[in-house]
């Protein structure tokens, strides 16, 4: 302990941070520092997001006209498949856990690193390796099965690079599992003295719920993918209908993971929202324990509802009923969260800076996304809406309107902590405005298209739907400009931006108050002792000093 602490203290006095502790590409590529790994993820992730975004733009360009005159049908199919695969497996699922989670978890817990730093680096390289394999499949000629890889099309009929893409996803799955294992143990075992479960920031609760899903769900899709690969390559028969195999079983196993996976994407977003909204209204989160437990409730209920993707897929009527009912129950914890956030603003001191604007955008868009989810959970209505653009619009509202907005809120909020630099607030506000308005223009028309019956994954469509599709494409270009602007000004600030203050938003939390900005290599000179709850806003510095520190109880470390 003392040797490390001394080195850190010396480093600190020299203005050393985790960014300039060591130099050279090797010191980054082989780093065990969770913060550097978080930055590595951020860079790789941004590249995948850009790739997925390019695919999305091409899809929207094609759909501007009903005739399918820009790309061949086959190319179009590959574009939407690769958009889905890249965005879901290589952007949405790793995004907040791998970037913000990695960076913040030990800082918020008062730990020097995650429990298994080497495993953490391995996770990053599995993610990269999976991405490289998937990109190889794309460059070699692409995949055209849709991101769901339904059999028997994926096993027998598709002539594209299905197996290679699946192997990429498989490898990436283990990155997600190992990250989950790492975070669960970190949260259980690495909390600073005095940091009891109910003093944890809500971001940690959300991360914990997320990690549970990663560990419990991901292996099931891993083995399912493996079975599909074996069936494609070696003609074994598990799902093959000509042998008596059931393609619907593949859908069961696929959605056992892939439905909870949407909570892997959105739950950490909830955590970010709680952190940012508390800081920018200077209020502790309204109903802390309700928000905390609703994350766990969503994680657990999330495993019981997957059949709502299969109401018309040949599943039994009664199974559909059970799944529909349980799906409606998920609405309750979601409602709890939304209302608690709204009431956190009540009598607060609300500052509408860019991270907060993202948060308010999130609350609005996620409300719409969640409520339109109820349309799809309603059995009688889903028969008509299933596999139409209504579904596409719904999950983009949750994923882009929800998760990406939360991710951007988090990146903007912790940007000064991560880089020590401040972005231009004006540019950020323009970015929020462009993204919010572009997003709504893109996806609101798709709800209407969906109810009129436009099926998803269609290369051509009847002419009467062109007006709405043009609106959507126009919105997508605004959205694209918004994202590009955001990436540019963030990069700009990282390279040449002005230095940020240590705690520019006067936020509470170990990462802001007890760690340097940017933090030093092992986060803390001394491990902090926590004596009060999270979000202790509204108390003056001096008042807190007077409180007598309660020594941590031994049993608290579970």
């Amino acid at each position, binding site marked *: 302990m003392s040797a490390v602490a001394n080195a850190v203290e010396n480093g600190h006095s020299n203005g050393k941070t985790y960014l300039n502790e060591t130099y050279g590409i090797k010191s980054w590529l082989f780093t065990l520092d969770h913060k550097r790994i978080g930055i590595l993820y951020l860079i790789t992730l941004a590249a995948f997001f850009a790739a997925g975004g390019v695919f999305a733009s091409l899809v929207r360009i094609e759909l501007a006209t009903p005739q399918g005159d820009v790309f061949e049908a086959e190319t179009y199919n590959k574009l939407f498949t690769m958009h889905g695969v890249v965005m879901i497996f290589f952007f949405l699922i790793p995004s907040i856990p791998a970037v913000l989670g990695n960076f913040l978890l030990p800082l918020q817990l008062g730990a020097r690193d995650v429990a298994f730093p080497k495993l953490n680096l391995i996770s990053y390289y599995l993610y990269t390796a999976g991405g490289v394999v998937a990109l190889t499949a794309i460059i070699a000629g692409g995949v055209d099965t849709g991101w769901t890889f339904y059999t028997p099309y994926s096993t027998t009929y598709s002539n594209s690079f299905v197996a290679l893409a699946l192997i990429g996803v498989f490898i990436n799955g283990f990155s997600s599992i190992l990250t989950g294992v790492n975070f669960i143990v970190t949260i259980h075992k690495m909390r600073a003295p005095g940091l009891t479960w109910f003093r944890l920031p809500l971001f940690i609760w959300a991360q914990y719920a997320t990690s549970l899903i990663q560990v*419990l769900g991901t292996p099931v899709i891993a083995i399912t993918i493996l079975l599909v690969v074996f069936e494609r390559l070696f003609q074994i028969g598990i799902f093959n209908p000509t042998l008596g195999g059931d393609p619907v079983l593949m859908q069961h196993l696929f959605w*056992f993971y892939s439905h909870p996976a949407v909570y892997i994407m959105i739950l950490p977003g909830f955590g970010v929202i709680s952190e940012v909204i508390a800081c920018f209204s200077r209020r502790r989160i309204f109903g802390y324990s309700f928000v905390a437990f609703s994350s766990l409730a969503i994680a657990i209920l999330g*495993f019981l509802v*997957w059949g709502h993707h299969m109401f018309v897929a040949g599943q*039994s*009527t009664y199974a559909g009923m*059970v*799944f529909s009912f349980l799906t409606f129950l998920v609405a309750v914890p979601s409602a709890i969260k939304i209302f608690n956030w709204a009431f956190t603003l009540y009598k607060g001191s609300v500052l509408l800076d860019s991270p907060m604007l993202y948060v308010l955008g999130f609350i609005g868009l996620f409300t719409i996304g969640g409520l339109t989810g109820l349309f799809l959970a309603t059995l009688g209505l889903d028969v008509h809406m299933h596999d139409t653009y209504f579904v596409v619009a719904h999950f983009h509202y949750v994923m882009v309107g929800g998760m990406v907005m939360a991710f951007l809120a988090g990146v903007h909020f912790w940007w000064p902590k991560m880089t020590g630099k401040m972005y231009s607030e004006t540019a950020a506000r323009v970015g929020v405005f462009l993204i919010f308005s572009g997003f709504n223009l893109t996806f609101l028309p798709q709800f209407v298209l969906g109810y009129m019956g436009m099926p998803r994954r269609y290369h051509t469509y009847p002419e009467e739907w062109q007006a709405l599709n043009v609106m959507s494409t126009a919105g997508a270009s605004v959205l694209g400009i918004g994202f590009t602007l955001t990436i540019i000004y963030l990069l700009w600030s990282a390279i040449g931006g002005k230095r940020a203050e240590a705690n520019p938003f006067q936020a509470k939390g170990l990462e802001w108050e007890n760690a340097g900005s940017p933090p030093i290599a092992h986060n803390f000179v001394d491990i902090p002792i926590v004596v009060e709850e999270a979000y202790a806003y509204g108390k003056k510095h001096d008042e807190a000093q007077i409180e007598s520190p309660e020594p941590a109880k031994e049993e608290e470390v*579970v």
Partner: protein
Amino acid sequence: MSEHHIVPLKIYMLIFAALLVGTVITVAIAFVDLGFLNTPVAILIAMVKATLVIWYFMHVKYSPKIVALFAFAGFFWLIIMFSMTMQDYYTRGWHEPLPIPFLEN
């Protein structure tokens, strides 16, 4: 770290013997027709064997409760997967509508 419980040799040997006996029983009983109990009995024996391994060989008995909770969670989620999947397959043949549609006119 003397606080780690060192399991007596005798217990390990007993568990080993019990596992072997369980294997013999499961083979022997497979040749007896127990009617609808055939599969449940085989699975029950396997579960008892697995529990012995987890409880003693894997030291769950001597570990913090959280470890037992983790082990339980793994199997509990398996049960979720099996039961929620099978409720589809078991009800697929039900062509008749529910006896009382709840909002019939």
